């Protein structure tokens, strides 16, 4: 039996004046998974998330979250979810411990704030003003505020945007940690690498519509089954041996670097067999597997607008 549904959205729509932010979004999120809403900026990710959180009223569609209606049961819902907003700020001169203390007071139950700070690597910043924190530290504080009341479901909106690679990896570790504690995570990102690393399932959204939903690996296998093997050899005529299993792009065989195109799970194995069987001396060998980004580009037919 699959885990119970924690979020169920059907045919959500939301417009701001003449601008359609969300046109038609339907998705389900199950307990314990990390679900990612991915898409270019302006695709409707944040609006969708804020409708689910109950911060915005939808124009059309039905949303159930933790068995509640996000608008009608807003008060009950806020105690059970943790949120982090895109580009959020706190009071410039609020101290880290004061923010956690305030949040602890606001929620009727709270975890140990000092332990939480230590877990997020912020214990040295207890007395620092918010304005003096680095981007990564601010984001970790927002993660702390989202977790202070031990919520069942955590929303993270563009959590790592603008962070350097190290800070980004540290935050990824925190998100995996939330999942390891049995919580459900709903996140948005326009970074495909982030989605691929973190998410159990993703929904690709463009122009306010969900165009595909699934596990990243599943989507890659479905939409981008092709594989590439690139190898370097001095052996003349090596390319001819591979005619039976895939295409050798002539242009790509220029010099001694050969690029083989094929599809399916057996392709790479077949190439290795032939190299071994024919005794071809290979100086370099690498395989190129499509990523979620390739799927995304193929489906949206555009670029990841940054």
């Amino acid at each position, binding site marked *: 039996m699959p885990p119970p549904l924690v979020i169920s959205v059907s045919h959500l729509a939301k417009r701001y004046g003449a601008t359609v932010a969300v046109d038609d979004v339907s998705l389900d999120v199950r307990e314990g998974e990390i679900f990612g809403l991915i898409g270019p900026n302006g695709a409707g990710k944040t609006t969708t998330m804020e409708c689910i*959180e109950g*911060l915005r009223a939808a124009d059309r569609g039905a949303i159930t979250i933790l068995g509640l209606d996000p608008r009608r049961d807003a*008060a009950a819902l*806020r*105690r059970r979810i943790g*949120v982090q*907003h895109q*580009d*959020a*700020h*706190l*009071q*410039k*001169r*609020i101290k880290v411990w*004061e923010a956690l*203390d*305030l*949040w602890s*007071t*606001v*929620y009727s139950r709270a975890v140990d704030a000092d332990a939480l700070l230590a877990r997020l690597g912020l214990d040295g910043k207890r007395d620092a*003003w918010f304005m003096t924190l680095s981007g990564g530290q601010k984001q970790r504080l927002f993660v702390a*505020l989202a977790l202070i009341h031990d919520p069942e479901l955590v929303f993270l909106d563009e959590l790592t945007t603008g962070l350097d690679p190290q800070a980004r990896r540290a935050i990824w570790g925190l998100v995996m940690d939330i999942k390891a504690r049995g919580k459900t995570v709903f996140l948005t990102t326009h970074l495909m690498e982030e989605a691929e690393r973190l998410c159990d399932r993703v929904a690709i959204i463009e122009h306010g519509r969900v165009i595909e939903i699934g596990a990243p690996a599943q989507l890659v296998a479905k939409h981008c089954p092709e594989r590439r093997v690139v190898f370097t050899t001095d052996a003349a005529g090596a390319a001819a041996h591979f005619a039976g299993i895939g295409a050798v792009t002539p242009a790509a065989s220029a010099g001694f670097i050969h690029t083989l195109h094929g599809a399916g799970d057996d392709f790479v194995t077949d190439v290795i067999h032939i190299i071994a069987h024919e005794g071809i001396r290979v100086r370099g060998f690498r395989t190129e597997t499509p990523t979620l980004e390739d799927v995304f580009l193929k489906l949206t037919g555009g670029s990841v607008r940054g």
Partner: protein
Amino acid sequence: MFRGFLKLTWVETKIFVREPMGLVGTLGMPLVLFVGLGRMLGAGRSGAPALGGAPFNVAILSALLIAVSAVMSLVTIISIYREGGILKRLRATPLSPLTILGAHVAVKLVFTIAGLALLVAAGRQLFPGALDVPLVPFTAALLLSTLSILSLGFLIASVVPTARFAQPIGAAVVYPMIALSGVFFPISRLPSGLRLVAYALPTTHAVALMRGVWEGAGWQWGNAAALAIVFVACSGLSSRLFRWE
């Protein structure tokens, strides 16, 4: 939820104290004006009549300035908090909207009392006898006035588009209100059109209420009622127009 209100009020008080400019504007400026004008107008010599009598009442002007700077500060803070997404973040907590905004009003009222206490302390030192007025009703009059003008501030904060405009728009609305309030010259000397405008402004009733207490005429219920009406009207309008982001 009351614990949340107290905690937020306390945190916002600490944050406000950490911003030197805010503190100077709220506590320092009215005090400097009070002492400076008080000396210039010769209040030191003969007590209450001088401070209250000569061209205009220095104490009431200074008290009005305390209220006005509280309003300016509120408008700025609310617009900065909105622009920075701080209001939105607080709203995603179980805190009620009224609690979030009420805490800011509470902070302003606390500093209004602090500002008045400073004036009184300075007055007792520098102008002996000048502040022999009933302090409890005078404080009540100032608090009601501040609350009423704060609600107008909320209305301004509800409609200003960005933090950058908050201060100039706030100033453009509030400072002419001081000029028309009757603190410098009697309302009766205004042309009839402007006089009507003056009667619609909370500052006018604030000055009349404080003056009534100061001059021993007692609590002016009419002016108090006018301030309450402004408070109800502006709060009601703001609750419809207020934008959280």
